């Protein structure tokens, strides 16, 4: 099993990658290759040219935002291993590190990148809902310069994003977890592939014993990440106890078009989302209090 014939160009800068995308028909960016190469081997995708951005150091690494100390910038080419083991992320945005650690296996994490993960936009991926729950911003570079998109607007459909053909994700900006907050990513993984059948990402800020702010989003249950804003709106200002979480999830979690396939029906995924959404909120609260 091997890919169809294609040409190969290695970009030496993000600007050159955009230029190369514009100059070659049916060209695809190649980052870690861990979504693209499997698809090429199955001939589900036959690009005429690969533009390898895998060595662009300018797009790699986790650093603190120079605009202030309440946001972190993550280069699109940072690998899942780099994100899972980053001390900065583990202490200041642990939700992302916790989710990255649950991706695939060590070999996959050593090669796969956050930029490739979100650009591929597989509904069963682990990072999309995490970025939605965090309120992350995706920074993009294209032929007409830079632009930024809020994570919920980035994912537009199954395997489809707001990226234009010649654009490239350069960095992902995530807010630092505020004091008194906690977060959790819980995943029901497919036993063979390891991808998410349902993944629940939650954050919560606690004052005294009440929840002052929370967010909740799901992978795997619909074509794009499900942002359960109605659930967390109902929780704001209420006592952060298990019964309140259960009531809010039962009353307000709506998944308009649940995804169903041979592994799990839509109905089952909705049932999973209710249970794991509740558990993720509980764990986020427990961590906020600890």
């Amino acid at each position, binding site marked *: *099993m*091997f*890919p*169809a*014939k*294609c*040409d*190969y160009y*290695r970009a030496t800068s993000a600007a050159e990658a955009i230029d190369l995308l514009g100059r070659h028909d049916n060209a695809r960016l*190649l980052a870690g*290759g*861990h979504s693209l*190469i*499997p698809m*090429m*081997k199955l001939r589900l995708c036959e690009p005429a040219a*690969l533009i*390898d951005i*895998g060595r662009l150091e300018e797009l790699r690494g986790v650093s603190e935002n120079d605009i202030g100390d309440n946001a972190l910038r993550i280069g699109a080419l940072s690998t899942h*291993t780099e994100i899972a083991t980053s001390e900065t992320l583990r202490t200041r945005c642990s939700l992302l590190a916790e989710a990255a650690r649950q991706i*695939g*296996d*060590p*070999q*996959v994490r*050593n*090669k796969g990148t956050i930029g490739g993960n979100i650009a591929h936009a597989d509904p069963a991926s682990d990072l999309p809902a995490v970025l939605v729950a965090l309120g992350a911003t995706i920074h993009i570079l294209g032929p007409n310069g830079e632009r930024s998109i809020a994570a919920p607007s980035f994912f537009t459909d199954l395997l489809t994003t707001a990226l234009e053909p010649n654009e490239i994700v350069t960095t992902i900006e995530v807010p630092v977890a505020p004091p008194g907050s906690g977060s959790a990513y819980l995943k029901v993984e497919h036993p*063979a*592939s*390891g991808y998410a059948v349902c993944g629940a990402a939650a954050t919560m800020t606690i004052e005294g014993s009440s929840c002052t702010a929370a967010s909740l989003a799901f992978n795997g249950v619909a074509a794009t990440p499900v942002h359960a804003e109605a659930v967390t709106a109902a929780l704001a200002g209420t006592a952060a106890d298990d019964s309140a979480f259960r009531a809010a999830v039962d009353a307000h979690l709506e998944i308009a078009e649940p995804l169903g396939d041979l592994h799990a029906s839509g109905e089952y995924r909705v049932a999973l989302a209710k249970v794991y959404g509740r558990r993720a909120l509980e764990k986020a609260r427990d961590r906020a209090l600890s």
Partner: protein
Amino acid sequence: MSVKIEVEVNGTRHEREVDPRLLLVHFLREELSLTGTNVGCETSLCGACTVKMDGLTVKSCTQLAVQADGASITTIEGLSPEGELHPLQQAFWDEHGLQCGYCTPGMILAAEGLLAVNPSPGESEIRESLKGNLCRCTGYHNIVKAIQSAAKGGA
């Protein structure tokens, strides 16, 4: 199109013109005749093709040879000097960590990758780190024992 690449494999530099679609595992097996690295599933799941690339384990069926240009690669053949067994190889032998042996090169490279960052892993850490490596024979039990024993010996 063919692309010139230079790769160091087990300490030896190789220069080749390759088709961009050539997978790293086929480069190793067919261009360099290093057939210790096996191809199992071809779909990124079994880990039989695991090698170390610039110090990190990767599945060589899911990398293009062109991506390895400039890299330093270790395959099972390069883990220990000719005629000697690496402590992990010895431990797999001693603890019966293999039966048919098909998964073994990948298992040992994956284990070496674990011990490089975590020299004395617990059983659950070992099992978790082998998530990307499948064995159809042993039931994993003796593989875990072999890695524990190699770790105790300071592999």
